[in-house]
Each structure stands twice: as structure tokens, then as C-alpha cells.
């Protein structure tokens, strides 16, 4: 995290409780986009845990990111109902439009393309989240539109 005090705030929020490790790591990941090795070392020290354990928990959960994210994060639902509703085409459109494979971040740091598990909006599949907004009933054109809109508006 860029500022040590923000990390402190989060640890304090959970009263340094080592059982809140998952929540602490998640909050840090959400606030800063990802968790740095330095963050993990600080957390380990403050919670009285071995660094390996902090790393082991951090690497287990998909919503805790250990790599820096792009400015905008796309999370595309990779689960069955969205797939049956035509997800493959959207998958390809996304990779094509952004020029990166799933899991990667664009060179200019603008976009990170990830998959997510079901968001529970299956009746309007295929579905993707761009940052905190959910978009449904996707078509290849719509995807290109959304990317242009969000990217341009940046």
C-alpha cells in the first residue's frame, strides 16, 4: 500500500486479530488494488504470524490480488449459464479488443482482464463486471462499446 497509515487503519479496524487475516488481506487488496510483499511482512509482524502463513492465506483466495491491477478491472463470468448463453464469443471479443489474454494487464496499465465466478445475474448472461458495475446481455458490439466508454471516460 502506498501509505503505511492506511494499512495501519485496516489492521486497527480488526484490532490486530489474527483470525481476521482473510478480511484484512481482502480490505488491503480492495483498497490498493493488490497486496505487496511489504504489506504482508507488516501484517505478519503486527498479527504475530509467520510470513509464510500470511502468504499462504493471501495466495489461496482469488479476491486477494498479489499482482498490481490495471486502472480498470474487467471480471468476466466464466461459469456455465453465461457460457451456455454465448460466453465464448464474448470471451474472444474481450481478448481481441484489449489485446491481452485473460489474467493479464495491458502494457499501458489501463486494463486488467480476469474471470470471476458466478455473480448471480444468470438470467441476463453473458455477464461481466467492469470495476463495480455489472453489465449483462452482452454482445460483441456491446462489449466494444463499454470498453470504449469506460476507457475513454477515464
Amino acid at each position, binding site marked *: 500500500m502506498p501509505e503505511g497509515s492506511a494499512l495501519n487503519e485496516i489492521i486497527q479496524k480488526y484490532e490486530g*486479530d*489474527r*483470525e*481476521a*487475516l*482473510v*478480511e484484512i*488481506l*481482502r480490505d488491503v487488496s480492495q483498497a490498493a488494488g493488490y497486496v505487496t510483499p511489504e504489506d504482508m511482512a507488516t501484517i505478519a509482524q503486527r498479527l504475530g504470524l509467520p510470513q509464510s502463513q500470511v502468504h*499462504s*492465506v493471501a495466495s*489461496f*483466495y*482469488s*479476491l*486477494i490480488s498479489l499482482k498490481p491491477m490495471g486502472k480498470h478491472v474487467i471480471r468476466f*463470468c*466464466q*461459469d*456455465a*449459464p*453465461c*457460457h*451456455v*448463453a454465448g460466453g465464448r464469443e464474448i470471451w*474472444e471479443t474481450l481478448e481481441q479488443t484489449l489485446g491481452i489474454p485473460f489474467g493479464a494487464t495491458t502494457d499501458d496499465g489501463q486494463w486488467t482482464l480476469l474471470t*470471476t*465466478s*458466478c*455473480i*448471480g*445475474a*444468470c*438470467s441476463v*448472461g453473458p455477464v461481466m463486471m467492469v470495476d463495480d458495475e455489472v453489465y449483462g446481455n452482452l454482445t460483441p458490439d456491446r462489449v466494444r462499446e463499454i470498453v470504449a466508454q469506460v476507457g475513454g471516460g477515464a
Partner: protein
Amino acid sequence: MAYRANILINSDAPGAEAVYGAFLDELQELALRDEVQVLMTSGLGGQGVATQGVDAIVYPDSVRYVNLTPDDVARITEEHLLKGRPILALTQAAPEVAPLPPPAPKEVRVVLRNIGKINPFDIEDYIAEDGYAALAKVLTTMTPEQVLDVLKQSGLRGRGGAGFPTHLKWTFARNSPNKPKYLICNGDEGDPGAFMNRSVLEGDPHAVIEGMAIAAYVIGAEQGYFYVRAEYPIAIRTLRAALEQAREYGFIGKDIFGTGFDFDLEIRMGAGAFVCGEETALMRSIEGQRGMPTTRPPFPAASGLWGQPTNINNVETYANVPQILLKGGEWFASMGTEKSKGTKTFAIAGKVKHTGLIEVPLGVTIREIVYDIGGGILNDKKFKAVQTGGPMGGCIPEQYLDLPVDYQSLASVGSIMGSGGFVIMDEDTCMVDIARFFMDFVQDESCGKCTPCRVGTRRMLEILNDICAGRGQPGDIELLEEMGKSIMHGSLCGLGAGAPNPVLSTIKYFRHEYEAHIYEKKCPAKVCRALIEYKVDPELCIGCTRCARNCPVDAIAGAPKEKHVIDPTICIRCGICKQVCPVAAIDVY
């Protein structure tokens, strides 16, 4: 004089008297005193969320004005009360409560009964529907044993997927001598396509809170946890608000209903691990560890969260409890089949006309769900299979359309109830592709602890990928079957035990598709890219060049007025040429 409008002002807020007086004055001025009544009431309730200021609700419009001062009143009286034009700038937008469509003929809504009808942010709306009456009855007139008797009679089984008799689960936790005891609600609904729990948490959170309070009373717990996946931020927000209100009204907290019973609840969030829906993994996650399942025994009822007796149930299981206590075990048992009592929610998804959430008595057939409730297959195509129970469930083919949907019947054909996922597939679905798809998901979510699951699912996935890419070998099917069995036997938790189900069930019922992929290098459903070809029918082609012009990789050759030809080595099977051809001369082979 009958009143045509009523204004309710909450008397608890400072400044309420002045606003009340202002309304009386303004109404007098406009000669509306006989038509509009103004009332002061303690606890406004009603639509919307309370503010710290003076709020007023105008009925029957159900418009809520917030933070009013006497200066606002003149305008409101003239514009809204006289002329019927609410002043939106002074109102509070009510949170949107999306209703469900009216129940289909075979539906019976128990768990879903309040969704869309009540405002989840208004506890009094829940109370109007007999909310918390069950808790009152239990705490003041029933012993834990009596509650267990009612549950036993109802035949309620865990709705999270395992279907374990709920009264037994609670009995075990109750009988464990250690204290403190804990209660957990599993809201980690991770099955793709399942949003039953989300809908209940967002639309009727108090039903779950009430169910948990009753459970806590029975087992002797004073602390409970909601474990909700982080991908459900709205559900979490709604739950937080509901818990605050429940505390405010004294339904949870200390000395509930003056009986000396204490119980409170906290929310814990998941962090994106599907396996944390498994109860032991869930508890490890709350404890701040990697969400890896642990052996059972010991079962949570004996040693669970922090080694203490714990009862975990699914959102839907708890949501059924208040109704059962109010209407009786017999009522619940009057629905469903002999061993599967009551109703169940299902999330209908896939190639069907009406997708969405339904609730039916157990025992309704697959055909009834797909055709009577779902409206039949999209575009009137042919039904091929339905996958029930999420990624660890099997695919059920056409010959079982009249199978009743209950725990035993689904298990007898190689699937599971799971949490209620119901994905419908048509003739254009490739069953090998589907099996591969689910294996991909499970492989990704495997926690890695058990070698058969960790390595086995990856190997199975590789074989499936090869088959779909045209690299299938004789012997692959047999290998998949063998590996599947090993993984099922060698895995500690339900994820591993169920991971091979989609593959094994599709091999069982659609072996010919696998064989076509392997031996003929063909995909009968025309889905697997490597095994299909787009061809121009020379009989129909009019040489308009549209396909060639639209092809993104220039794979089509042909001059104007000449027959066009697609080069299969360049073609990426995107399907655009077929879409744009004006004479339907291009098809997939």
C-alpha cells in the same frame, strides 16, 4: 368526512411538533383539513430508511419526505396534497425491491413468499407478514425438544445440497456438552447459475435471521455468523441493515422477549474461493486460515468453529424454519415426496424461455419445470439435457424428463440436488464441451489438498481439452472413467467427490458424442471449433462477395458472380460469414 390522504410524521425526531403544526396551518389555509389527515406517530416504519430528521410519509402515495423543516411544508401542501405532484427533491428514493413474476401454476412460494412484496429495509413490513411471530412462539411457549419434534415431523432436509435431516443436525449440536456453541449460516453460494440465496438475503433477510435465532435457542448458542461471499455486496449491505433493525427492535441481542435468551449475529465475508462453501473449509476461512476442508469426523456439531460445537446450515434451510414453526410440521410434510418433504427453490438457467428463480414442491418432474414453468426450449429447439446441482452435478438426458425432482431420484440417475442449480441444454450444446467446461471450473477451485483431486482433475481436463481439439485417442473414454472413479474415492470433500460427475454422466448418456469426437474427429452439436468446418454450398452461392468482405481473416476466395470457397486452414470459425450471407448458402459441417 372520509380522508383522501394521510400524513404520518414521526414524533420521535426533534422538531416534529413544529412540522406537524405547519401542516395543520397550511392545510387550513387551503381548506383541505377535511380531506387530509395529519398524524403524529412513534416509529414511522414504512417505505424507505429512517433519517435523523423529521420524516413524513404521505399515504396512499407512499411518498417519504425526509429531513423536513416547517419551511418545506407550504410547498408540499400546495404541490402534493392539493395538486397531486410530489416534490421529488424533498423525498427519499426508496431502495428498489425487484418483485418476482407472479407464481407459475405449479409453484408454491414458501422461502420466496416475501420477495418483492416487502421492503427488506423495513422490519415492520416483515412483521406485518407474521415476521418474528415464530420466534415469539418458540421462546415463550416451546422447549427446544418441542421445536425439534416439529422439525422432525416436517421432514426438512438441509437445502445446501447434502440434504441431511435438519432436526438431527440440530440435535447433535444441542447434545454436545461444550460451551460456547456457534451457529453459522452458509451464504457462500458459489454454484454458477445459483442465485437463490442471494435473492433471499436481498429480499427477505429477516426470515433467515429469525430462523437462526430459533436454531440458536435449540442448540444453546449465543453467537452466530453469516458467511456471505464477497461477490454479493448488495446482499451484505441489506443484511447489515436488517441486523441493525433486528437489534433495535430487540429480536436479537440480550434477553429476547424477556426470556433471558441472548443471541447476536455478525457478518463475515468470503474472499473468492468456491471451496469455502464446504462447511469445514468455511469454518477455517472464518478462523483466518486457508479455506481447505478438514476431515470429518469430528463433525462441526461436536467440534467446529475454533473447536467448539457448531451448527451450519444453508440460507434456505434457515429461511424455512419460521414458517414451519408457525404452520406446523404437518403442513410442510404435506408437500413433496415421501423422503423429500417441502418445497425447494431452483434457479432455472440456460436455453429455456423463462429463466429465473422458482420454488416448487419437491417431486415436480423435470418436464413440468422445463415446459410448464420454463415455457419450453428457446426458439422451440429440442431439449437435450439438464444439469442439476451445480458443477458437481450430473447431466440428465431426455429419457428422464418425467423424473420427479427430489433427492433420491436425482441421485439415482447420477446427479445431485445441490443447492438448486438447473441449467437446461438444447440440441446445439456439445456435451463433451460442457463436461470440459465444468471440469475447468472445478480444477481451478480445487484447494489442492488431496492428490487425486488436485492432479486427477487436471489430467482429466487435459484429456477433455485434447478431445475437443481433435486430439482424442482411443482409450481416452475408458481412462476418464477410471480416473473419475479414483478421484471420487480419494477425495476428502464434496468438491473432489463430485468433480467427475459431469464427465461421468455425460459419458454414460452421451457416449456417442465422445466417440464422434475421438474416432471421427467430428462434433455432432457443431460447437467444438477444431472439429467443424464452415462451407459454402456451391448450389446456393450467388457470388455477392458479402461473406468474403466480412471475413475478419480473409479466408474466403471468390470473384463477384463466382462461387465462393472458404479455406479451412485459415478460417477461425467465427460464424460471421454464415450470418451475413443473404441466401443462407453457408452452413456448419
